[in-house]
């Protein structure tokens, strides 16, 4: 294996899903990096061995969907240890999780669930982020959520919460632009104040994805091309925050690899144009 590259390149990458493993390894398309869901590679076997081959050709970002950083109970140490072993095997260029909870202590909801943004929840999540960072020995990136409801008890916005979390734990922020767009439509979140709230130097990665609409509600299904409004928001983020490694995510009704590469190409060209205008 190559020596670990500790940073993602400031280029566009794609979320790599099982149906494209073989093609990517065969074609080796000119991608900056790839991202996979951590839990699909826990322990050993065929999936992990494919990922290790991918890692020989691209920087890999491990994106977790199961840690439940804001769950009320103690952190799941078995889950955390499995993530640690995966990091040791793959030597990822980034490791990320979502700003969400998934366990009541009685049962787990295998989804990304929002919670009230309060001082108390901030200190709870901070402790757990520190536990994860200590265990895996690296900075964790935390992603903003797409939510379909919010809480009367919240004392701050999600953007402010993330900014505080980054300040208190040193974690990075994974800014999902589609999630912000979904929240702006569903919950009335103001995208510009969200972006303003984020400390630019803590933002380490962008996500871009498509969504769908159900009963007037935008649902973050990762099942379509990035829409124009999200591209606009992305350009705004590039201006305000700067260029960062950018991922095209597509998890359902996944199209040909060429479509993903096309979307990644658009993101790449937005970054390059932003760069041109700065020179």
């Amino acid at each position, binding site marked *: 294996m190559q020596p670990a590259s500790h940073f993602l390149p400031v280029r566009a990458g794609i979320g790599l899903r099982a149906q494209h493993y073989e093609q990517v390894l065969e074609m080796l398309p000119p991608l900056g990096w790839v991202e996979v869901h951590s839990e699909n590679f826990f322990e050993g076997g065929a999936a992990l061995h494919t990922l290790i081959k991918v890692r020989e050709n691209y920087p890999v970002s491990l994106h977790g969907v199961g840690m439940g950083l804001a769950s009320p109970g103690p952190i*799941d140490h078995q889950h955390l240890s499995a993530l640690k072993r995966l990091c040791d095997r793959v030597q990822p260029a980034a490791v990320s999780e979502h700003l969400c909870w998934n*366990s009541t202590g009685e049962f787990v909801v295998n989804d990304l669930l929002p919670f009230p943004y309060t001082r108390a929840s901030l200190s709870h999540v901070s402790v757990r982020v520190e536990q994860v960072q200590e265990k895996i020995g690296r900075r964790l990136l935390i992603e903003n959520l797409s939510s*379909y*409801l919010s809480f009367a008890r919240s004392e701050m916005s999600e953007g402010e919460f993330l900014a505080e979390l980054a300040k208190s734990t040193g974690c990075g922020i994974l800014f999902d632009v589609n999630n912000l767009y979904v929240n702006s439509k569903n919950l009335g979140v103001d995208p510009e104040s969200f972006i303003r709230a984020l400390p630019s130097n803590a933002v380490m990665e962008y996500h871009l994805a498509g969504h769908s609409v159900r009963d*007037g*509600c935008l649902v973050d299904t990762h099942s379509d091309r990035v829409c124009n409004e999200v591209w606009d928001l992305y350009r705004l983020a590039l201006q305000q925050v700067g260029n960062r490694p950018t991922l095209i995510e597509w998890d359902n009704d996944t199209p040909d690899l060429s479509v993903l590469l096309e979307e990644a190409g658009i993101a790449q060209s937005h970054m390059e144009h932003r760069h041109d205008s700065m020179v």
Partner: protein
Amino acid sequence: MTAWFEDVLEFGNAIRNNDAMSGGIGPNYPIGTALEIYRNNYRGNLQGALGLAYPVIRQLVGDEFFRMMAIMHIESRPSKSGNLHDYGAELSKFLASFPNAQELPYLPEIAKLEWACHMAYFAADIEPIDIVLLASIAPENQDRLRFLLNPACRIVRSSFPIVDIWQAHQPGMPEDFLIDLDSGPQIALVNRRNDVVRVEALSLPESAWLEEIESGATLWDATAVVLENHPDFDLESHLVNWIEQEILVDFDHEAKEN
């Protein structure tokens, strides 16, 4: 309890138990719409996990039955892990008492076999046995060797021909097959080698020997137990085969040092 925890628990119960939720704020659509999205995601994700882990059960009962069974399973057995691949370990137990499945009495045992395969797929990687080191063990110490089974290895006993049923439902197998359900019991050995999960049938003495080894018996003790009931058991040929097949993957260090 911290106040925000209460919101989280209320939200969780609204998703899993269809309870009402007072702490959530309805956005530009009714809060019920939001909760329905979460409920659908919750059930859909667990149904998807069951479908991935149990492809043979799914073929045996059909999509519609499988969907109904999955919904009832989710109702009675919640997820306990943030890793979706951990969901469904108890499907065999569930099926054993599932009234609608009593006509297919082999289902729980097929489910047990499929879960063993699912576990094998994700089991930790191992190095094959060190043959040179093994060969260097002095003959007088060989009887005291304690072998270790591959962590992907599982033995599943059934009163039905589960290996034949499982094989017939693998991708690429012909669709017209005939399995005599009364053809007697089968013992399945699940293992993974070169990243491929394999299922094969074991004879009674083979399974007895491997189970002795699994429970920590020495080579001598395991073989003595099996020979008592099966005087024809040919250890040597099995040993070579099981090492080659990476079913035996290590032996204890005490023996290595001696």
